[in-house]
C-alpha cells in the first residue's frame, strides 16, 4: 500500500522543477518510474560536471566535478545492473521530463558564465540540486519504493548524495 506523498517533498519538487502544475505527485510514481527519475537526475549532474570541467579553472571546483562524475557513474552502473537483474525497463514520466527541461535551461544559462561567476553559480546549483533531489528521494521515493533491492540501492544512493550536499556546502562557503 502506498503512503501518500509528503507535502514537503511535493513542495520542493514544484519549486525545484518549475513545473507549472502537476497532475501527478512524485510519491505516486511506480518503482520503474522512480528508477527513471533517478537515472535522469544522475545524468543531469554528470552533465553539469562536464560543463564545469570545460569552463572552470578552479582546482577545487574541478575536483568536485570529477567526484560527481565518478560517483554518479558508479551509482548508474549499479542501477543498470539491478534493472538488468530484475529484467525491468525504467519508465519515462512527468517528473523525468520536467527535470530534463529545467536542466537544459540551467546548462544554457551557466555555459555563458566564466571565471568566478561560473564557479559560484555552479557551486550554488550543486548545493540546491543535491538538496532538492535528496529531499525528493528521502521523503517521496524511499517510503514508496516497493522492491526491496531497489529501495536498498536508493538508500545507498541517498547517502552518497548527502555526502555531495555536504561537499557542495563546503565549496559554496569557500567561494564566497
Amino acid at each position, binding site marked *: 500500500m502506498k503512503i501518500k506523498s509528503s507535502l514537503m517533498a511535493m513542495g520542493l519538487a514544484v519549486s525545484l522543477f518549475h513545473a507549472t502544475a502537476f497532475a501527478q505527485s512524485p510519491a505516486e510514481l511506480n518503482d520503474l518510474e522512480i528508477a527513471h527519475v533517478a537515472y535522469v537526475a544522475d545524468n543531469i549532474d554528470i552533465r553539469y560536471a562536464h560543463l564545469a570541467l570545460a569552463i572552470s579553472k578552479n582546482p577545487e571546483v574541478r575536483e568536485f566535478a570529477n567526484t560527481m562524475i*565518478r560517483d554518479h557513474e*558508479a551509482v548508474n552502473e549499479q542501477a543498470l545492473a539491478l534493472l538488468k537483474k530484475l529484467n525491468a525497463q525504467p519508465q519515462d514520466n512527468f517528473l523525468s521530463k520536467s527535470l530534463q527541461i529545467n536542466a537544459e535551461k540551467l546548462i544554457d544559462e551557466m555555459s555563458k558564465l566564466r571565471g568566478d561567476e561560473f564557479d559560484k553559480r555552479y557551486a550554488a546549483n550543486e548545493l540546491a540540486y543535491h538538496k532538492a533531489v535528496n529531499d525528493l528521494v528521502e521523503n517521496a521515493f524511499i517510503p514508496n519504493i516497493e522492491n526491496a533491492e531497489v529501495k536498498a540501492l536508493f538508500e545507498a544512493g541517498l547517502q*552518497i548524495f548527502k*555526502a555531495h550536499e555536504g561537499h557542495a556546502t*563546503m565549496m559554496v562557503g569557500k567561494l564566497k
Partner: protein
Amino acid sequence: MKLPTRREALVNTAAALSAAVFTPTSLSRAIASDGPSITHNVEIRKFKFVPDHLLAKPGDTIVWTNLDIAPHTATANDRSWDTGMLKKGQSKSVTVSEIESGGYFCRFHPHMKAELQIEQKDSL
C-alpha cells in the same frame, strides 16, 4: 622527542579482492623493530573509515577495503602515501615501513578523515 623518520609507505600493487594472504616482502628491516607484524583491516563504509583511528607499528600491514558504491581513496594528508582509487569491493594493502604518524583522508571526499598512529621504538 621523536626523531623525524623516513617517510615511506610501500604501497602494494596487489589489487582488489585478494583479501586473502598478504606476504610483504620488503619488510626485513622494519620487522626487527618490534614483535610479530600484524595485519590491520580498515573498512570504508558509509563514507567513513572504520576504525577511524588506528595504532600500528613498522612491519605491520594495513588493508583498506571499500564497501561503498562510491569510489574512495586513503591518502596521507602530506600525500606521502596513497592507496589510489578503490572501487566497490576493492582492497589495497599498505605496508607500514616507517610511516610517520598522522592523518589521512579521501581525495574524492575530503571530509572523510582518519588518523594513523605509528609506534616507534625510542631506542631506534
